[in-house]
């Protein structure tokens, strides 16, 4: 069945099915990358952690180095395990955003103005929500 689909799109210009397959791959690579970073950070984190688990019963916001882009840079430079985990989390959040950006480019190649506009709106909402809160 997948062969039939491939034949159908062959010879034609860049189409939706190819686009979706590439997006699926993009998402998979993003998740793998993020998971690898989280795993490395996590192992280092456990190694550095002595004694009892932190108390999660009551809520206190994370320190700036674990929630703000600018401050995360310093944590990473110092090799702080918790910050490495947060970098993985950031990569993970960026993965669907990258998919929307990819769709935008793909629709532009297809010359589909309507969906270039639609993708642009979604991308702008995502970017504003991320950077406005920073």
């Amino acid at each position, binding site marked *: 069945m997948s062969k039939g689909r491939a034949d159908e799109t062959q010879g034609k210009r860049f189409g939706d099915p190819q686009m979706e397959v590439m997006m699926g791959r993009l998402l*998979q690579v993003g998740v793998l990358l993020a998971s690898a970073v989280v795993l490395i*950070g996590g192992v280092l984190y456990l190694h550095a952690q002595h*004694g009892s688990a932190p108390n999660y019963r009551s809520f206190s916001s*994370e320190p700036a180095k674990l929630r703000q882009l600018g401050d995360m840079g310093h944590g990473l430079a110092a090799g702080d395990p918790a910050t490495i985990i947060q970098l993985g*989390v950031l990569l993970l959040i960026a993965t669907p955003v990258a998919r929307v950006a990819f769709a935008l480019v793909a629709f532009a190649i297809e010359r589909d103005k309507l969906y270039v506009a639609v993708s642009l709106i979604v991308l702008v*909402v995502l970017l504003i*929500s991320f950077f406005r809160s920073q």
Partner: protein
Amino acid sequence: MAALLFTLLLFAGSIAAGLLGALTGLGGGVVLVPLLTLIFHVDIRYAIGVSLISVIATSSGAAAAYVRDGYSSIRIGMLLEIATTIGAVFGAFLATRIHTQVLAVIFGLVLIYSAYLSWQQTRHPAPDLRAGSPWSRRLKLSGQYPGPDGKPQKYEVENIPGGAAMMFGAGTLSGLLGIGSGAVKVLAMDRVMKVPFKVSTTTSNFMIGVTAAASAGIYLHRGFIDPGLAFPVMLGVLCGSLVGARYLVKANVSLLRNIFTWVILALGVEMIVNGAMNRL
């Protein structure tokens, strides 16, 4: 409890949540938040933050498998993501203004409704083909998917504003509770817009990740995402859901699914009782 043991238990619990989410088709978040709050006694704000992260991981991790069969529709997904992402930002905004007790009660109600949906899904498959609205073609939402006999089946969609309004609600729930709210997304496409069921479920999977990403950045900045929780939970839910999607969904699991539907119902009641009595 020692840090290592706590992490291992969290990892094991998250695998179970991922498996359960894949089996019931409700996603990992719906099981994860009650697990973290009721069993691990994690504050619901941390639970919601880390759940959002695992929702993105599950949705993106499963994406490659979903596109291969050619059911999902990138256009339907992208158009409706306008509604879900704006809803998600609104939900994340609401979350800071709602007391955690109320959050727990809302979560419980959503769980009970999800259990009802999952029970209903197994019984009433939606009818497939019908003529859509003229906007279906204008917005290029009409499409085709491989039918049971291998031949492409054409479909059109209807009631796009109704579907979009419901998607805004799905996004709000996702941003407020840290869940994928895939069940509501499927409902909006399948029941309201009359998108074929298989197209709805696969397209919903794509939308879940983008929707969750819209509020996850806000939660990260607010300090709701703790690395000590994110590490075991994200990796655990991802493993559980991938294994679940690969091996369990193909097997005949209607009995298991029924049992888990009751588990989710019970968790919902627990959340409401604990939220109302301020025991979380």
